[in-house]
Structure formats: structure tokens, C-alpha cells
């Protein structure tokens, strides 16, 4: 044993070592009411940034056999406001605006003229439950091409008949499984499931899959995020 020190010096050394771990109390900043919200906002933004990095354009969400489908009557209806905003199907159009070559009002028949895709995919709610549903519609990417969207734009924003609003990042909008959906379980969308047109985005959490679409805007800047995001939920929430 080479080192022999008096007790006084040992106690000194212990105090010094204790001070060295003092930076740990910086975590206490999260307990300060004034700092808590901005810190958590930063943390959530960091998670969203990481989510964006983890997203892979060509990676497909798992699809399922018909036998795995959740029965239609057990597919939850999660409206944030009303289950039926009273859309008049006869005059309904999707109003397209923003960074597109062909803005204007698009009828359902025009949208349905694009190739029809059907997929059995998992729908995950932020609450924690999940169901496997059967969705049909057209690829959002096909529609963006149809309207001559500027592919350098970053966002696709939608508005809904029930005043709900949402956005998708362009990479997710261009994903092959991202649909403008008009059929569920091989039947036209029912009103409570978002008739006549909704989003089906298997790479996103449930609340990003807006129902009762009325407006679609391709945009370089995000003017408005999304209804639940504005309440404090994750903005990107990719699965």
C-alpha cells in the first residue's frame, strides 16, 4: 500500500468527489414550473427530429391477411368533436391549393379515376390500442402528381369538415402506402369513419389520419400544425 493519508485529507477528498456529481441536480430544472414546459417541448421536438431520421421511404408497414382484420363494427370511431359533421356529398369537393400547378376543386370521381389500392394495415391510436383495418383509396403520391404538386415543398396540409386540421411531411405523403381513402372494408366510407374522403397513413399514428377532408394544401412552410399537436402531442409521430 503506497498511500497513507490522514482522515482530514480523506474527508476533503470525499467532499470533492461529491461535488463532482453535483451536475446531476441539473435534472431538477424539469421541476421548475417556468422551465418545465419549454424543456419538455424541446425534448418532444428532439424525439420528432429523431422520428424523421428513422423514417425510411421504401420501408413498408406490415400488411395482414383478411383473417386478421378487426371486425368493422369493432373498429373504434374516434372523432374529436362530432361523429358526423354533415357533409353534403352532392356538392362535396376537395379544394386543392398551394404549391401546385393545378389548384381547384376536385370531385370524388376525379380522385377515384386514379389506380385503386387496397391494404389491410394496423391503425395505432396514441392512447395505446390498435386495430387492423381494410382501407382502399388512391395513393396520395398519385394525387400529388395529378395536381402537379411542387415536390420540393415540405408539407401537405389538410383541413376537415369538422374543423380538424393536420399535416404530413412530404416524405410520408409520398410513401406508397399513404392513401386518400374512400372505401373501408370494401364499402364506401361511412360518415363516422370520415366520408367521403379520409387519410390512411399506416406509417403514422392515428390522429394524423384525418377524416372528412375538405381542403388540401401543398406548402413550403407550415402555417398550422395539427389539432392534437397544438394541444401538446408529437408533431411527426411516425410509427
Amino acid at each position, binding site marked *: 500500500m503506497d498511500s497513507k493519508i490522514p482522515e482530514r485529507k480523506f474527508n476533503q477528498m470525499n467532499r470533492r468527489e461529491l461535488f463532482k*456529481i453535483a451536475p*446531476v441536480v441539473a435534472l431538477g430544472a424539469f421541476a421548475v414550473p417556468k422551465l418545465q414546459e419549454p424543456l419538455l417541448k424541446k425534448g418532444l421536438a428532439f424525439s420528432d427530429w429523431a422520428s424523421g431520421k428513422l423514417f425510411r421511404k421504401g420501408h413498408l408497414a406490415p400488411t395482414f391477411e383478411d383473417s386478421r382484420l378487426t371486425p368493422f363494427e369493432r373498429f373504434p370511431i374516434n372523432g374529436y368533436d362530432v361523429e358526423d359533421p354533415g357533409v353534403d356529398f352532392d356538392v362535396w369537393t376537395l379544394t386543392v391549393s398551394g404549391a401546385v400547378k393545378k389548384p381547384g376543386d376536385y370531385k370524388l370521381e376525379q380522385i377515384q379515376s386514379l389506380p385503386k389500392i387496397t391494404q389491410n394495415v394496423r391503425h*395505432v391510436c396514441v392512447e395505446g390500442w390498435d386495430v387492423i383495418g381494410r382501407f382502399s383509396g388512391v395513393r396520395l403520391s398519385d394525387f400529388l402528381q395529378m395536381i402537379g404538386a411542387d415536390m420540393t415543398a415540405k408539407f401537405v396540409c389538410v383541413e376537415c369538415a369538422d374543423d380538424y386540421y393536420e399535416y404530413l411531411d412530404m416524405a410520408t405523403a409520398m410513401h406508397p402506402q399513404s392513401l386518400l381513402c374512400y372505401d373501408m372494408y370494401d364499402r364506401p366510407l361511412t360518415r363516422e369513419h370520415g366520408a367521403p374522403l379520409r387519410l390512411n397513413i399506416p406509417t403514422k399514428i392515428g390522429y394524423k389520419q384525418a377524416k372528412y377532408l375538405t381542403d388540401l394544401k401543398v406548402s413550403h412552410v407550415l402555417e398550422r400544425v395539427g389539432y392534437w399537436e397544438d394541444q401538446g402531442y408529437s408533431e411527426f409521430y411516425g410509427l
Partner: protein
Amino acid sequence: MSEAVIEITSTKSGEVETAIYEHPLPVRVCHWLNVGALFVMVGSGLQIFRAFPSFGPKIPQVNLLHWPRPFALGGWLGGGLQWHLTFMWIYMGTGAVYIGYQLLSGHYKQVLFVPRDIPGIWPMVRHYFFFGPKPPATEAYNPLQKQAYTTVLILGVLSVLTGFAIWKPVQFSWLAWLMGGFNYARIWHFAVMWAILVFIFGHLVMVALHGWSNFVSMLTGWKRNPDYALPWEMNAPAMAEEVDSASTEVPSEEAEKEVASSEIMEPEGADKAPPDGGSESV
């Protein structure tokens, strides 16, 4: 810190005591950061669980248990998610730094449970639960402690993996698949949390019962008057002393084999050290 073992001359009595530097700074910082992170992860995780306290279908929903709001963090689902998705980075960060440091420094030998710890398990269980005699301490942690710390590290890794399977069931669909699907991943994540809580309960009980010097050493790194002779780095000779009578009769060839088989666990150059060298100096 140049010396892992020092001698202290008591001011009052003038007697000489030993002290061992048990926990390097990165270990201590990670330990206490992780205490905070784990507290937040469990509290906010239970808040998230409250939004759908079931592992069955949504329709009809059968709740597993009602977790009271005061025992959850964040106030509401969105708040719980904010805490969870923020502190998971601190949780994973401290875990990664801890594991990385332990591996690179070789300090992992102090906590990692290895096959040769197995025979020591039963005597410790007998001591703790059935009033058996206390097995002599030969290193910082007894076999049962090493088993517990190693297990909780594995649980920590599992908590991250199951968490990713829930957070990213598409990007990490293979992870969710490994766990039996998205819904099973939720079950595993929940179960792992309870397993960690069981560990924490036991850990706190042990600290409360006879852990004051252990508690202090996790703060300052130094343990005064340790009940084991030498730190791990010089532990091999100390153990040799314990089995002294037996080892002298073992043919040297056998002994060499033993050294080779446990080579990963031995500090560098341990086999070159004289058999009793380390323990002589105590």
C-alpha cells in the same frame, strides 16, 4: 485517482483504516441521472397506460387495473408522452454511457454476473432469507448482488427494445414481430417495468438495512472500512488466499487451465502475479 486503495490514519485514535475507490465518476453520474430518468419514465409510462389500461381489444374494452392519476406523471396523456419521449433520451443516454464505460474500463467485472458466481448464490440466499451464516466477502459485490445488478441491466436494455417496438412498430417491425406483435410488445414493456420496480424495491430495502457505506460510496466513490480485502483489480489473489489449502494441492497444469478458462474475467497480467502477492499487503 491514482490509487484505488488507500489507508487512512484516524484523527482520534490514530488507528489505520482502509478505503477503496469503488465507483468511478461516470458510474456515479450515470447511476444518479438514471435514478431521475427511471422515476420519470415509470411515472409518465403509467400516465400513458392510463389512457388505455388494457391489453385486449378497444371494443369491448376490459380494463386491467385503474391506476390513480396522482401516482402518474404529466397530468394527462399528452403530458405523459412529453415526459416519456423527453426522458427516454436521458434514460438511454445514461445507460449507453454506463455500459460503454464499464466495458472500456474493465470495471464491468465488479458487477457482471459470471458462471463462477453461481456456487455463491445459495449461501447468500441462505444468509439473507434463512438466517444462514454470512459468507465471507471477497469483492465489492456478492454473487447475489451481481446477479441482481446484471439482471436489471438486461431489463434496462429490454425496456428500451420493447419501448422502440411500441413507439416505432413500422420502422422496427422486426422488433415488434420478435415480441409477438405490437400488442405483445406493450405487454412486455409493461412487464419489464414491473420487474425493474421489483428490483428497485429490493435495492432500496438492502440499502436501508445495511447499505449506508454502499450509499456513501455511490456518492463519493470511496468506501471506508470495506468488508472485503481488496478491490476487484487485485481480487484474484485474494480469492486464491481463501482457497489456499486447496489450491496448493492442485497440480499446476490444472491451475493454469483454470486461469485460461476464466481469462476474460481476469485483469491483465493476473496470471503473472504471484499467487498470494496481493493479499499479503493487507
